[in-house]
C-alpha cells in the first residue's frame, strides 16, 4: 500500500522493476518502498504492483524503470506511463566512466585479457551480439510467469514447470 499512499500524497515519480504480464500496451511494475514501523522504529520493505502505459513494450522483464504519473487515468488499472529505462537487466553502464560493466569487471578489460592469451573465434563478442530478446519465447521463457502443471490435456504446455 505504500506506493499508492505515496502517489496519493502527490508523488509524480516512482522507480519500479518490470515483472512479466500479458497485457497489451502496458507493462507491470513492482515498486518497493521503505515504511517506518513506529513501534519498532525500523524501516520495512513494502511492495506494490503498478501498471504503466507502454505501447511499444520497451520494458523487458527485470528492467528498472522510471514511472511518471499520468494527468488522467487511462483505465482503472493504468495510472502511470514509462518515462525511461534506467537500468536494463544485465547490461549495466558504469556511471563514472561510462563504460560497460559485467559484475565487477569492465568488458574492455576482459577482451584485453583474452587477446593476451590468444582469443579464439568461438568466444562471445559483445559488439557482434544482437540486442536482448532474440531468444525470447524460443529458449528463454522468462517473459511469462511459469506455473506448476495441474492438468494433462494432450496439448503442449510451454510455460508449465
Amino acid at each position, binding site marked *: 500500500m505504500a506506493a499508492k499512499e505515496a502517489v496519493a500524497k502527490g508523488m509524480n515519480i516512482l522507480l519500479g522493476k518490470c515483472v512479466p504480464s500479458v497485457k497489451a500496451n502496458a507493462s507491470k511494475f513492482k515498486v518497493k518502498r521503505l515504511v517506518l514501523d513506529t513501534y519498532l522504529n525500523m524501516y520495512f520493505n513494502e511492495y506494490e504492483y503498478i501498471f504503466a502505459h507502454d505501447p511499444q513494450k520497451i520494458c523487458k522483464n527485470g528492467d528498472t524503470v522510471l514511472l511518471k504519473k499520468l494527468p488522467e487515468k487511462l483505465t482503472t488499472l493504468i495510472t502511470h506511463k514509462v518515462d525511461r529505462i534506467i537500468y536494463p537487466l544485465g547490461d549495466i553502464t558504469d556511471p563514472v566512466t561510462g563504460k560497460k560493466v559485467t559484475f565487477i569487471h569492465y568488458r574492455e578489460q576482459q577482451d584485453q585479457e583474452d587477446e593476451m592469451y590468444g582469443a579464439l573465434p568461438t568466444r*562471445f563478442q559483445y559488439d557482434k*551480439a544482437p540486442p536482448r530478446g532474440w531468444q525470447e519465447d524460443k529458449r528463454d521463457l*522468462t517473459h511469462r510467469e*511459469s506455473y506448476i502443471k*495441474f492438468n*494433462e*490435456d494432450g496439448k503442449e504446455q510451454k510455460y508449465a*514447470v
Partner: protein
Amino acid sequence: MSLSWQRVKSLNVLRNWPILPKDSVYNLRREFSLLSVSLPVSCLPNVGCHQIPTRSFYKHKVEVDKRIQWTRPVKVPSIRPVKSGDLSGLPEVNFDKPPSLYEESKEYQTASDYVKRVVSLKFQKTSERKQALFDAMIQRVKRHKLDTKSVECKIAKWTAIIRNMQVHNANFPYDRSSRADLQELIDLRKKRMKLLRSLDYKKFEWLLEQLDLLYKPPPTTHERVERKKSMRWLADEYCENVVKKKLDEYKEQLNSQKRGFLERKLSTMKSIVEEEKSLGVEPSFTTEEIIEVEEILKKIIKEEDEKAGSLSVEKEVY
C-alpha cells in the same frame, strides 16, 4: 426384591409402558412404519423423512464431465532432460581421431596408419572417449586456448557431465548415488544461469543458443496439484472461453451488417443532396463526406472478397 433389567425384560412386563428404553422404541417404529401400512402412493405424506434435493450430485457431475475433463499429470523426475532443459544430447565426436594431446606431437604425425588406428579413440579407455566428448562441448564457448575457469566454460563442462549422466541414469535407474550427484549438478547449473542472467543478459542468451538449453523461470507461488482446485481453474478457463466465443460471434454478426448499412447510407445521402439541389437549398452533406463513406465501403468490400477468396481456396484443398 430386587430384579435385574434382564429379568424384567424376560418377564415381558414392560411391553406396553409409555416410557421405553431406546431399543424398543426403534422396534416399535419398525413395526408401525409407513411401509407396513397399505396406502395408495399419492396419499403418502412427505413428513418426517429426508427431503429429496432438486438437483442431485450425480446429475451435476454428468453435466460438468461433458464440458470439463481433468486428468492428473504424471510426475516427471527433475533429472530428465525434459525438466532440466537439455534440448539435445552430447556433441558428436569422430572416434577415429586420437586424443587431443596426441594430435600435436611429431611422432603421431609421422606414424603409420596402423599405429594411428591403434592410438585412435576407438581403442582408448572409456574415460578418454568421455573426456573427448566433454572437450568438444567446452570448445563451443572457449574464450582462449587455456580458458577453463570462465563462467561459460564451467557451465559448458557441467552441461556435458549432466548429459552423460542422464544417459547413464536412463540405463541404470537404481543407481541412486549418481542420481543424487546429477540432481546437485543440475541445481548448480540452474543457479549459475540465474546469476548470469541478472549480470550479463547478452551472454546468457548466447550461451542458451550455443549449448542448446531451455531456461524456464521458477513459479512465483507453489500450488499443490489437487482435483478440486484444478477443476475450479478449468471451470474459470471454460467460462472465459464461452464469453470470448459469444463476443466474437456477436462482433462478426455486427460486421456483416456494416456493408448493407453503408450502402443504404450512401444512397440516402445522395438522394438528400440531389433533392436539396433541386430546391435550391444548401446541401447538408459535402462531397468530401460522401467520398469518405465510399472509401470505407470499398475497404469493407475488399476485405470481404479476400475472406471469400481464402475460404474458396481452403475448400479446393479439402
